[in-house]
């Protein structure tokens, strides 16, 4: 059965994945984010998204009625292997897929699932994540964005920060405080709203890489329809935490790196004349290949319901620390070529900018320190942790 699925998948991909979409991603503009104002770099990118979405393969393991492919864990794995085999690009980058979708599948009501999941699967709405606030980062549960019940609508006031792509997103999934009197984890609710709502504004923040993908996001008397609250009022923390597990799983994928994960072959020329660097790269490759095995094991266990609920924290920690090391080594191997910041030769400082960007991997989605704390507390059950 799985062999025939593999053959069939391989044939379909062969016929349907445009050759351009089998080229390695060159830069940010090669990512397709979808959304109301989707920008497609070329026709191949649009086609690839349409064809994959048509089969529900942007989210192969979601139920078919929610816009997914309805594949089993086994089939999903085969599909991923076949995609990797031809070097196919991800047809759609989406916080809707990696974060909000799983939370809606678990906590959303039928109407919400019907309304939001298929458009996520098709990449029609681009989502952003409104969690962090200036004084609520690691201590997320201390968030203060105020949400009042005004009878026929919610009224939201407050500020978020580090909201990735808030200026490009159509909708936001947002944590708000609905009960200021309750203990901090208990008065939080999980709200969805349109970024085009009156009273929402964003201000981009420039990153050290020279790009500004994230924003300060302000809410000034934003009216939100009553049916856009997910789960129960004041019980949003459960939804928030569940979503974070998926976010961490997604971010841990950074640890995998491109095709093989190992660096040595790509850097062969640079490292052979440099014994210390060669040794560093070889040690990295050991860790990278071991992490790949861990990642496969984690996904298999997760889909089988056998993973510890806090295991995404371990994966996120290991994967992001690994990715930071990868880019340190790429910089070391690249030497002064990789230091160039604007030249065409360096593709406008691609190596250096990517290297700097990876420094956020161990911060975004909960810092490494927070992940280690979760492992100590929830997996190791250490006293006082």
């Amino acid at each position, binding site marked *: 059965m799985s062999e025939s699925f593999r053959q069939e998948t391989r044939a379909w991909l062969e016929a349907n994945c445009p050759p351009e979409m089998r080229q390695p991603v060159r830069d940010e503009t090669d990512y397709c984010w979808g959304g109301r104002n989707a920008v497609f770099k070329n026709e191949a990118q649009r086609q690839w998204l349409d064809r994959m979405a048509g089969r529900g393969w942007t989210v192969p393991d979601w139920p078919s009625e929610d816009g997914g492919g309805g594949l089993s864990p086994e089939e999903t794995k085969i599909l991923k292997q076949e995609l990797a085999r031809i070097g196919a690009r991800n047809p759609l980058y989406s916080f809707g897929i990696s974060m909000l979708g799983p939370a809606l599948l678990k906590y959303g009501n039928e109407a919400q699932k019907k309304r939001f999941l298929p458009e996520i699967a098709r990449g029609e709405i681009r989502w952003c994540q409104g969690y962090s606030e200036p004084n609520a*980062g690691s201590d997320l549960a201390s968030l203060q964005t105020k949400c009042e019940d005004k009878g026929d609508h919610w009224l939201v006031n407050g500020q978020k920060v580090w909201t990735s792509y808030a200026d490009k997103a159509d909708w936001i999934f947002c944590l708000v405080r609905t009960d200021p009197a309750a203990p901090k984890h208990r008065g939080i609710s999980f709200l969805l709203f349109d970024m085009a709502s009156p009273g929402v504004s964003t201000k981009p923040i420039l990153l050290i890489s020279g790009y500004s993908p994230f924003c300060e996001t302000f809410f000034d008397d934003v009216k939100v329809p009553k049916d856009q609250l997910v789960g129960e009022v004041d019980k949003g923390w459960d939804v928030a935490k569940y979503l974070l597990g998926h976010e961490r799983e997604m971010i841990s994928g950074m640890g995998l790196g491109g095709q093989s994960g190992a660096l040595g072959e790509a850097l062969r020329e640079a490292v052979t004349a440099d014994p*210390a660097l060669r040794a560093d790269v070889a040690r990295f490759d050991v860790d990278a290949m071991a992490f790949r095995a861990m990642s496969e094991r984690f996904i298999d266990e997760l889909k089988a319901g056998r993973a510890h609920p806090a295991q995404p924290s371990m994966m996120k920690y290991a994967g992001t620390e690994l990715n930071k090391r990868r880019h340190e080594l790429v910089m070391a191997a690249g030497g002064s070529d990789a*230091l*160039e*910041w604007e030249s065409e030769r360096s593709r406008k400082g691609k190596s*250096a900018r990517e290297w700097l960007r990876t420094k956020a991997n161990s911060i975004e989605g909960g810092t490494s*320190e927070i992940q280690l704390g979760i492992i100590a507390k929830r997996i190791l059950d250490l006293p006082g942790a």
Partner: protein
Amino acid sequence: MPLYLTDDQAMLQDTARGFMAGEGAIAKELRHWRDKACKDGFGHALWKQFAEMGFTGILIDEAQGGLGLGHVEAGIVLEEIGRNLTPSPFLITAIAFVEAVRGTPHADRWYPGILSGDAVAAVAVDEGAKHRPEAIALRAERSGNGFRLSGRKQFVVQGASADVILVAAQADEGLTLFAVEKGAAGLDVEGVRLADSSIGARLTFDGVEVDADAVVGEVGAGDGALSRLLDAGRTGAAAELVGVGSAAMDMTVGYLKQRKQFGRLIGEFQALQHRAAHLYSEIEIARAATLKAQQLLDEGSPDVEAMVAVAKAKAGRASQLAVQEGVQMHGGIGMTDEYDIGLYMKRDRVLNELFGDPGFQADRLARMKGY
């Protein structure tokens, strides 16, 4: 000699610290020139001020109008430059170049301009992406009563603004250094902005004709001058890295005492306390190794080379740890351009690469020790 600063040196440190924190501050210099997309990557007015302070002549003999001080003192100034990320030609011009041409007619030619803060010099060693001085291939062929230079150089810091560039080349007789003046026919200079906003140049020598008196020292005997240049450059870069790392650490420790999460200062979390304490230890060790290398250089000790490699590698690693921990412990704000910690990370990267990264230095040490 005790391994701490003398009273005179401590006084110089006070002066340099005050000067750099004021005149060479990040907002005033680095950000200012960066945001103007300055083609030099540094301000000439500040270079003039360096001269007025006597800094540019720090390694030049008193008889020639300089301060006649040594590498310990040069390092004191460099550490403050590192702390403030002050863009200036100091390391390359006043340390590496001055050391390399010492005692030659090129010193008489260029020291006055350096003393007055009018001249900028550069040194061209690297030819590929990595520092490999043992593999220099730029050709110097006899031509008339001079030489023709052909080949390429890269990572020539301030090469686009330099009045004179010291070029390491291969003549039939062996490695030879040439002082090539700005605007030489056949020399193409491409200024390239680097991650830290400094300007490194790529140079193409397409049969550049130079007179015999462009040779620094003797033809075929460039090894000695090149190793003086590299020892001084590496030790200087180590001192600057100690400054970069110290300032990044100070900023970070300051932040730990100020940022609150979970109703506590984040500096109360032992997980961060221990890492900050570890970082402090590494920076102190790097500072000691650097001071040792400086003293050995000043003594003309035969053991200097190993310690220079140790200093450059250790300071590089310690500073790298400081900037990495710095960004991480700042959380989201550490990733923003508005906040200075990221600028330290960029500078650290460039300085680590300059004159050989920690891996290069470790390998060099291993070879010196015979393994």
